[in-house]
């Protein structure tokens, strides 16, 4: 691990000031916020992250979950994954979020990892994590080792010729299906970013993963009130029964009235370079009967633009079946 200076800001303003002068808030940032540390310390040991300054957020009062007046939810940036997943309001109104979080990592890691940290979780692509390998995300211009290499676990949606790294988070997939908003405080003040606009596609700049700028501090995430009558579910498919990243996953939020889908939100995990919302699938579902044939059409639409690599072609069909099964489960009569 490279040496760094540890800073302990007493409030958000001090934390923002401590990082505002850095050149980037993305890969290669000279200053990093640290909360749970479950991604960052790991990557610092691997020398994938080499910050000169580490800014400890753990004493900031950003760890509350509260109901909003409209029935939505506000979730502090430092709320630990365990606390979020087990919160009664989350379990009652946003089951997909609770299920997604509990399907990821382990109890120890969920006790440490935070909401904002999970939004910024880095890819598990082995070329990114191994500093001896080429990787355009870690070392722009060095090439992508994965495209002609070991790419079984990597993305089939949203890829570019420079990067096919998968976004590994389960929580993010549920947040996308729930249309969360991310609230940021930075040197220029406060702003709110819909989660669909928060993560960016790799394109020509895979080192850039989010719209965050230097000094930007995520303060909280809000969820809109649950749609009346909606049911939600997270289904994750992986190589092991526990403690494994998704090969494919689906977060679905569906409202049914008189046997017809009146509203659907669909997001996929394990297959995209960002948590993958599928408006195409939502369109195929809305107004249609809740039948397997319709679900299959929605799944076809969701994967229409998939670009599989040599080793991950199976993910196209796996993701389709995952979505069909998730839709079947969520529309089953209670």
């Amino acid at each position, binding site marked *: *691990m*490279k*040496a*760094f*200076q*540890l800073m302990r800001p007493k409030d958000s303003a001090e934390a923002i000031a401590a990082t505002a002068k850095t050149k980037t808030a993305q890969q290669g940032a000279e200053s990093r916020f*640290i909360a*749970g*540390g*479950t991604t960052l*310390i*790991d990557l610092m*040991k*691997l*020398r994938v992250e080499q910050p000169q300054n*580490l800014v*400890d957020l*753990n004493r900031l009062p950003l760890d509350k979950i509260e109901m909003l007046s409209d029935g939505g939810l506000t979730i502090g940036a430092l709320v630990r994954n*365990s606390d979020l997943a*087990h919160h009664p309001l989350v379990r009652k109104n946003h089951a997909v979020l609770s299920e997604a979080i509990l399907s990821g*990592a*382990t*109890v*120890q*890691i969920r*006790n*440490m990892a935070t909401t904002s940290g999970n939004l910024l979780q880095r890819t598990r692509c082995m070329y990114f994590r191994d500093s*001896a390998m080429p990787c355009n995300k870690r070392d722009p211009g060095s090439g992508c080792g994965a495209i002609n290499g070991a790419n079984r676990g990597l993305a089939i949606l949203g890829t570019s010729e420079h990067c096919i790294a998968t976004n590994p988070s389960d929580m993010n997939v549920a947040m996308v299906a729930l249309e969360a908003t991310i609230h940021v405080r930075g040197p220029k003040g406060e702003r709110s970013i819909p989660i669909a606009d928060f993560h960016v596609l790799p394109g020509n700049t895979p080192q850039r993963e989010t719209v965050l700028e230097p000094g930007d501090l995520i303060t909280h995430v809000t969820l809109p009130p649950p749609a009346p009558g909606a049911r939600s579910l997270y289904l994750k498919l992986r190589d092991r*029964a*526990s*403690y494994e990243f998704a090969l494919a996953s689906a977060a679905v939020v569906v409202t049914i009235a008189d046997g017809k889908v009146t509203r659907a939100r669909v997001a996929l995990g394990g297959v995209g370079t960002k948590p993958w919302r599928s408006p195409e699938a939502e369109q195929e579902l809305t107004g249609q009967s809740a039948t397997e044939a319709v679900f299959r059409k929605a799944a076809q639409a969701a994967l229409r633009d998939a670009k599989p690599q040599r080793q991950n072609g199976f993910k196209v069909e796996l993701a389709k079946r995952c979505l069909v099964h998730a839709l079947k489960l969520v529309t089953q009569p209670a």
Partner: protein
Amino acid sequence: MPDRSESNEKPAMDSRLEFGQSTRRTFLSRLGIASLLATTGPGVTTWAQRSEKVVQGLATESKDAIPVSLRVNGKDYSVQIDPRTTLLDCLREHLHLTGSKKGCDHGQCGACTVHINGRRQLSCLSLAALHEGDEITTIEGLGQPEKMHPMQAAFVTCDAYQCGYCTSGQIMSAVALLKEPCGPEDAEVQEFMSGNICRCGAYQNIVAAIQSVRKGAEAQKTG
């Protein structure tokens, strides 16, 4: 003939102990270095280069050391440490509480599990300097051979280990599990324990030990 044994026969790890007087720790360290050298052929130079980097990165003596106060097992400690020092390294190398084990050092095996403010966490994935004011409990604080925690006793009774390296982490997780929303079935215990890897494969007996403590606690409540 000059005696060359001193200059040439030194073990790879500098140690104040002579060969044949190894403690378990120095023996294991030497074993680690020896197996590393054995695998360093011409085809694996990247691994050799990388391991050198890692060893450099582990240095904990630094002119930039900072004061850190920690509360561990009810005792207060003050140490001067490099800010890079993980909580695990601080516990083992500075406070000499070697019950918490270093397995993977990347948050994948659970051998380093400790309790922080009553919740289980991975001490290898956190920095010691982030834990001032926290109440930290290690296996040493849970029980001692003459007065074992019921979970430690259950691990003995159920033969829930073979080599023992993962055991302190398993027990720290198992004790935390007692207060977590874990369902009654073995499958649910397995899911809650999935962050603790046992390469000997003592899983069945680990689940049995945990279930015996849970049933005992249940019986006490109703009895």
